[in-house]
């Protein structure tokens, strides 16, 4: 229940983020009982690396406070879409915050926007989309995998977001988006193996004043097919980019410094000891990880112009080849 707006106290049913370390971030439900494999209600206990935590213990606690575990302690935080992306259970490949941020900004979402997403996948992006468009807007999200759609629907309900989102179990490449959405949508987002098959359907969904489209694809061949299809359907401002984030580890490093001053003076018999004495110098630095993702996916953005300018022939995306040879 805890995804909708700003909350200070944990109430029963809330999803709570348990923060132990930067690499140990978990999502826990503040509930007394849970169903076990046989469907019986049993007390809900979450096993952390620092000992067990009863779901019940969280109820009534304030977000942002310390929670004691048998072998240590952690902090409980109100979930945000960014924390959720880190803590959620993967049911598919997911999109991460650097790409998600770019997507929401470039789709020009704001409270009140109506947005289509396909596929829903693990709902990593969906949570950020919902935050951007609520309370007056809506997310329509589509996945042809029934179980994923069902789990996502349940999750949005558990997170208190159900009034801002509708989950469809539907193949958008074959059957398009809901006809009821025709002319009602501000933005369309695609994370599909064959996005170009969904684009012709997406065109109908846009409001008469037009809107923005984004497609996320790991492979360049998908991007090429997508861009061709976008041109064919009179999209403008077609742009492809990628975003890679580097997270630094900030450290004070102590480095040895060689002493050479003494070499300028004549050698003396009795200073043999401090000759090669090394100094230690502290330096503050930020170190990138030894290895990090070098590719997530290509983001292709495009503008659907308003209906009165759609068939207009322009050459706005003239060959923008800047390669001078």
């Amino acid at each position, binding site marked *: 229940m805890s995804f909708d*707006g*700003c909350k200070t106290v944990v109430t029963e049913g809330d999803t709570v983020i348990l*923060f132990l370390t*930067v690499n140990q971030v978990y999502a826990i439900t503040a509930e007394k009982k849970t169903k076990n494999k046989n469907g019986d209600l049993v007390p809900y206990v979450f096993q952390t690396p620092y000992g067990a935590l009863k779901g019940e213990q969280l109820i009534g606690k*304030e*977000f*942002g*406070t310390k929670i004691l575990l048998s072998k240590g302690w952690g902090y409980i*935080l*109100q979930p945000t*879409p*960014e924390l959720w992306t880190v803590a959620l259970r993967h049911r598919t490949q997911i999109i991460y*915050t*650097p790409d*998600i*941020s*770019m997507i*929401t*900004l*470039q789709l*020009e979402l*704001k*409270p*009140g926007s109506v947005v289509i997403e396909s596929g829903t996948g693990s709902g990593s992006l969906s949570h950020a989309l919902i*935050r*951007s468009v609520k*309370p*007056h807007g809506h997310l329509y999200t589509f996945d042809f995998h029934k179980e994923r759609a069902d789990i996502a629907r349940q999750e949005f309900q558990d997170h208190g977001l159900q009034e801002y989102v509708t989950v469809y179990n539907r193949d958008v490449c074959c059957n398009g988006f809901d006809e009821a959405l025709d002319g009602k949508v501000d933005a369309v987002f695609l994370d599909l193996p064959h996005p170009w098959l969904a684009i012709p359907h997406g065109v109908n969904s846009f409001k008469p*004043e037009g809107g923005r489209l984004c497609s996320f694809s790991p492979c*360049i061949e998908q*991007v*090429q097919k997508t*861009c*061709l299809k976008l041109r064919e359907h009179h999209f403008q401002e077609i742009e*492809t*980019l*990628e*975003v*890679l*984030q580097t*997270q*630094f580890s*900030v450290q*004070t490093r102590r480095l040895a410094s060689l002493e050479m001053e003494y070499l300028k003076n004549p050698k003396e018999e009795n200073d043999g000891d401090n000759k090669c004495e090394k100094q230690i110098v502290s330096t*503050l*630095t*930020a170190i990138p990880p030894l290895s990090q993702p070098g590719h997530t996916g290509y983001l*292709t953005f495009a503008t659907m112009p*308003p209906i009165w*300018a759609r068939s*207009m*022939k*322009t*050459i706005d995306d*003239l*060959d*923008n*080849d*800047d*390669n001078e040879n």
Partner: protein
Amino acid sequence: MEDEHKITPGRYTILQRQGYTKLYKVKENGTVMIRHFTVETQNAVNAKFFDLFQMKPKGNSRKMCKLERVTSVDDDIKHTGGSGNDNRNIIDDGTSQTLTKEQIEELQDGSKSSVEIVNQLIANSKTFSSKTGYSQEKYKSKKQKKYYEYIYFRKPTIRILAQMFYRQDPTKVLGIRTDDLSQILAYANIQTDGKYILFDSGTSGLMTAAILNAIGANTSGKLVHMHPGNECQKVAVQAMDFPQEQLSRCINVNIYSVLRCFYQNSEENMLKRKLPLEEEEVVQKKMKLDDDVEEGIKEVVVATEEVEASNKNEVSNGKKTPGWQIENAKACELLREGVDGLIIVAKEHPASIVKELTQFLNVSRNMVVFHLLREPLQDIYIDLKKSLEFVNIKVSNNFVRNYQVLPDRTHPLVNMNSGGHILHGQKVQS
């Protein structure tokens, strides 16, 4: 609904000529500079966004253009001379174009369309026919792009403004690139019912506009926008044309002035007493400002004095409470309640700002600090670690690469740039 998409006088629009964008405030009889032409925009007034206009010369003037509504772009470039198989015979000795520089300049006096100019250039090029089909295409589009004379107007959005400012001059937005902006907003977790503090030392109003846009119209969210100068920068805010209701939930205050109010309760008490500001206090405040503000921003200080002087007049004449004091009081009230997000984008070293403002942030809420340099953020990282008040602290930057995607010619764009650095973390009860 209709008006929302109309180019009405008084409203800000984005004027677009291919990839080039410019912010333009519509006037009944306005003009705007495009390339070396002064363009009268009269004929676009009350037309719709995305309507296409062609720049046409006005009378015999070589400098003045007017706009003519068209429904399509003429790109009928004529060339029937065939093409070569490769460029082995092309010698670039600068003599392939037989038109002189003067003649080309004359072509551009505005009386010819880009297509006519390009056709002339091709007809007078000795080598065009021996170029490969690919090179010919490239030549045509490059030339046509250069002389392109079609424009349209569109509604400003945060994306367009961010890209436009950054392209014009990154210092206009403290070096905040689009990806930086997107992540500042995401990590700040802007909710429509939240209260936020923004410290911004000059992003042309972009940060304020972006946060206000995320807070939304007809919601309860609020923003306290603190700035170090006298007047806050607000071009982007004006361009976004927010409804008054939304705009009024953004409280613009000078950081020194509001903190003084917070610690010394002066304006708040004053509001209660409904008495004019005492002479001495004003003088004191000015001096304080002088002390606080760095050498480089002296002009701002001068301006501050002017405004304070006029405020003082207002006080003594009408016995009215000046606007900035009301804003300070409103802001202090929010500071006392605590806020749901703290965003700091500074050109100064942000450490003292962070130290001062984190007290207003509620626990389990996020702080985001942007700086072009990484070192100041490293310092803050160490400070925060020591304070034990923040967890999940991260310092990051982005690599962004744009691509050209064309059949058989897909590759990363040749030029790229580097963005800034972001620190973010969540406050906890220490």
